């Protein structure tokens, strides 16, 4: 089994609820296991926990806005490969400011920030494919 196949398999698995898969082919055996996807609130915990005492965590995480992808596509942090990213962790953003582009079939969807705030974290790497509803950014509103 080639790396290409493995990648394809993992991609396919992402689109399902299956968490464990075992395949035997031409004598080679592959087992893929994955954790259930964390919800956006759970994912945001470690970031906040580093700086805040635990008693404040739940209050703080609820304040964070999770920007999700409205379509299946490819995530871009900049308008072209040479351009600077639209935003980075720590960037101050305004309501309506472009955070990233999701491309699907030459349809470029600019994702705008829905509130004024600060980017706490970008959750996806440039060029990576994202699913419908996948968390992209955590924004701390101000």
């Amino acid at each position: 089994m080639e790396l290409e196949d493995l990648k394809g398999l993992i991609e396919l698995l992402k689109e399902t609820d299956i968490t464990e898969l075992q395949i035997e082919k031409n004598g080679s055996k592959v087992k893929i296991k994955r954790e259930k996807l964390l919800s956006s609130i759970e994912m945001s915990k470690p970031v906040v926990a580093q700086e805040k005492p635990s008693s404040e965590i739940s209050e703080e995480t609820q304040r964070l806005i999770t920007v999700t992808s409205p379509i299946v596509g490819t995530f871009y942090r900049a308008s072209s490969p040479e351009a600077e990213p639209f935003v980075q962790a720590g960037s101050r953003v305004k309501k309506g400011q472009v955070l990233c582009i999701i491309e699907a079939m030459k349809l470029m969807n600019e994702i705008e920030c829905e509130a004024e705030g600060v980017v706490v974290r970008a959750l996806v790497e440039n060029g990576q494919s994202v699913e419908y509803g996948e968390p992209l950014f955590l924004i701390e509103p101000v």
Partner: protein
Amino acid sequence: MLNEIINMFKKKGDFVSGEEMSKKLGITRAAIWKKIKILRGAGYKIQATPAKGYKLIKSPEFSVEELRTLIRGDIGREIIFFESIGSTNTAALELAEKGAPHGTVVIADRQAKGKGRLGRTWVSPPRSNIYMSVILRPEIETEDATLLTIMAAVSCAKGVMKSTGLKAEIKWPNDLMISSKKLGGILTEMKSDPDGIVFAVIGIGINVNSKTKKDFPPDIRGIATSIREELGKIQSRTFIIAEILKETEHWYRVLLTGGRKPLFDEWKRLSSTLGRKVRVTAGDNVFTGVAEDIDRGGMLILRLPSGMLKKISSGDVTMLR
């Protein structure tokens, strides 16, 4: 007013008297004469004969006034024309942001910064090709937005076929091809909010009267073509655009009322990609396989050499032998 005069000429197909025109349009005969001079300036050949009136002999290769006379539906009801602009998509995005209605069309004679995918340039020599953006305000789910690019591909291919007789094919997702050379491209830009699609701008570039050897940079000469090169003579952009907008009107309605099946069936009929061995370059990843089908959103389903299926949401497709 100018398009009404052109309409009168076309309806009659013969001389129209100055008196007839001034009655119908409610302006003086001297004012009619001024309008005729404007049309002549725009490239119309109009014969003026005393006692008979005016007769249209020949229309120019492109005229926005004439295009307006050919529009019947919502798409193109409002046409905004620029002799020169950075990019029709950028202009259309700004207009849409300011509230331009569904169906507004932006056309330019030349683009200084024609847009391609991911910051690439669309080569846009002056007064020869179609550079056009259509503003849509579709009432469909955001996750179905990719259907708009399928719809645009079908509309452009059908429009080119009906107006020129050329067999245009679609390379996934929406490149227009003639005998494996690129004739046109479509780049859609969209704005959505948590409630849904606010608007989509469909940017259409089609090589009509360009000579690829003269007008295009060396790196794309061999892989591009134009309608003029395929047919051996200059074609009217007016009629090609009119057919494309008419098809867009039709297929947009099909998308909203008939759903994706009839649209996808047509796309598959026009597709040159399905069933072929292809290479897809998606960022740093390259996949080779057979283009087996498209999924319900129009994404490409590739069968890898191992037999595994891989779904592609974006990338450049190259046909392999």
